């Protein structure tokens, strides 16, 4: 029983960061119709940025996390401007190839700059975990969980309560009509990509200190983000949030009760099973491709 409780606590921490990854990816797909293969690289970017600020420059850890999110947004805006702006209206395969190119460049760039040896970030939190009855949670994990929830909340607020969010939702529903109503589509695309990238960088900035940081960590993050987004239905923000927690749950349970070797396989099995039986995702009925 205490084991299960511990799994649930781990699931919540992991799930909140997975949800961040998933929301970013699903926004970009929903609004721009771009399958962002570089998503995991922005996650890696966020993690390395924290390392740069907190460990190399020796500045405050919390400042490093904040800077990483801002830097992720700027990086996303830059990618949109350089690589995607000219490709509006191109078919999905074309932009996908571009993003795969971007992924290769970013990943090998990280490898070139930081080398292949994994880096670790020391958090300013005390090492002794907080005891919750039979289970426990470390201070760092609690910080990760709370910050991730705050970021998810901020994303929801931005999308649902602000003017920019309204324009984004309008573009998502029908970009031509939104454009006729005076929405600057190019600006929306840039904002979307920046927001999605910032969320991915945030997930990386939070999980980087929990694990170690390596150039290849983005591959598995991208694939997990795809799993989450498919689980929730491509383009569904609520679906991606719940999808993040479901994936984390499946991984925790799979690792805890089946085999730790196949922990990372859970996401792919979920993708395959969901697409075979409910291709539109668990929570969405609006759209179906194919």
């Amino acid at each position, binding site marked *: 029983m205490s084991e299960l409780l511990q799994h649930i606590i781990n699931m919540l921490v992991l799930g909140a960061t997975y949800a961040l990854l998933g929301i970013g990816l699903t926004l970009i797909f929903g609004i721009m119709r771009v*399958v962002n293969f570089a998503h995991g690289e922005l996650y890696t970017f966020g993690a390395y940025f924290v390392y740069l600020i907190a460990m190399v420059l020796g500045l405050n850890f919390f400042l490093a996390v904040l800077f990483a999110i801002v830097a992720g947004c700027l990086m996303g805006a830059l990618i949109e401007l350089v690589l995607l702006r000219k490709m509006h209206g191109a078919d999905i395969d074309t932009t996908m190839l571009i993003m795969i190119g971007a992924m290769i460049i970013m990943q090998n760039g990280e490898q070139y700059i930081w080398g292949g040896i994994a880096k670790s970030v020391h958090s300013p939190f005390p090492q002794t975990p907080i005891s919750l009855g039979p289970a426990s949670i470390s201070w760092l994990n609690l910080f990760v969980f709370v910050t991730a929830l705050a970021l998810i909340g901020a994303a929801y607020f931005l999308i649902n309560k602000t003017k920019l969010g309204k324009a984004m939702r309008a573009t998502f529903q029908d970009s031509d009509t939104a454009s006729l109503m005076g929405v600057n589509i190019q600006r929306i695309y840039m904002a979307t990509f920046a927001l999605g990238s910032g969320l991915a960088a945030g997930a990386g900035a939070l999980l980087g200190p929990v694990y170690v940081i390596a150039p290849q960590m983005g591959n598995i993050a991208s694939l997990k983000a795809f*799993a989450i987004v498919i689980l929730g239905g491509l383009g569904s923000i609520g679906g991606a949030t719940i999808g993040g927690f479901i994936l984390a749950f499946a991984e925790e349970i799979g690792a805890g009760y089946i085999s730790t070797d196949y922990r990372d396989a859970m996401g792919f099995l979920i993708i395959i099973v969901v*697409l075979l039986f409910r291709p539109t995702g668990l929570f969405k009925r609006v759209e179906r491709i194919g």
Partner: protein
Amino acid sequence: MRRILPLLALVVAASIPLWIKDPYILNTFVTTGIFIIAAMSLNLLLGYTGQLSLGHVAFFGIGAYASALTSLGFDVTLFGKFHVVHEPWPVWTGLVMGVVVSGIFGYIVGKLSFRVRDAYFVIVTISFAEVVRLVALNWVELTQGPLALTNIPPVAATIPGYGTFEFYSKTSYFYLVLAVLAVSYVIISRLVHSRTGRAMIALKQNESLAVSVGIDVTSYLVVAAVMSAGIAGAAGALYAHYLRIIDPDVFLFVYTVTMVIMVVTGGKGTLAGPLVGGLIFGFIPVISRSYVGPELQWIIYGAFMILIVFVLPEGIVPAVEKWFAKNKKQDVSASPAHVQRAS
């Protein structure tokens, strides 16, 4: 012209070992040839049916493992009680098994994943490749996991009355790869010019129209997937017996990316595309390795890929064909016959 060109290319390719003696360059030709075969098989799906399979390396790796395991033998216990022992078989049966097993997986994956399209299809195929990689990594009893399958025997052919010939030298392996490449080329060429091929192209151009005129889309897609997987399996089997060591890294996503870059650069949906793209990307490492490290080389790959999509979205071969066609048209417009017709 269209018939002569491939034959000419074959003759030129066959003469390569006669004038290139540098073992490193010859080695590059062998591995490039293997990847060209894999890229040709990917082109069948990506170029002719329009389905971007980003899990193609799974078939390559399955072919490699199936062939290696058939010729090495294995001894596994399934579900804790069924004991399966396989004695080593001759190597050529391994190659056949590589194609067959890969083709069977192509059938299963095709049957299941062609229910979805576009982004969904891409992600299902990637997931499949990742699951296969994790199985190869973790089913240590069968695959040795990260320790790799070693001492894979070289390909040997026994000709009655002449004894056994081992494809051990680079030159002999070059001809073996060239032969498989030529056979694959002919198979793909026959397929795309057949009724099946026309159906595939029809559904790439307009799937709902193809369905409405009675083309059974899924079954044609599955045919393409099986052929494609089988050929990729052959390439993987050749790879395993050439390197003589195979580990789960053979399933890495970067290999799929390499194949995709080859196809897209050369020109998807053209027979010559994967050959041209494959040669370019097979030899970029040879040229660049004296100047830059592996990371920068990959960065060049990525930049090249983006550049191609921006500048030559259809690839090199269609661009060259278009250029020739344009020149021909200009010749025609300058001829008197054209002037007469115009007047």
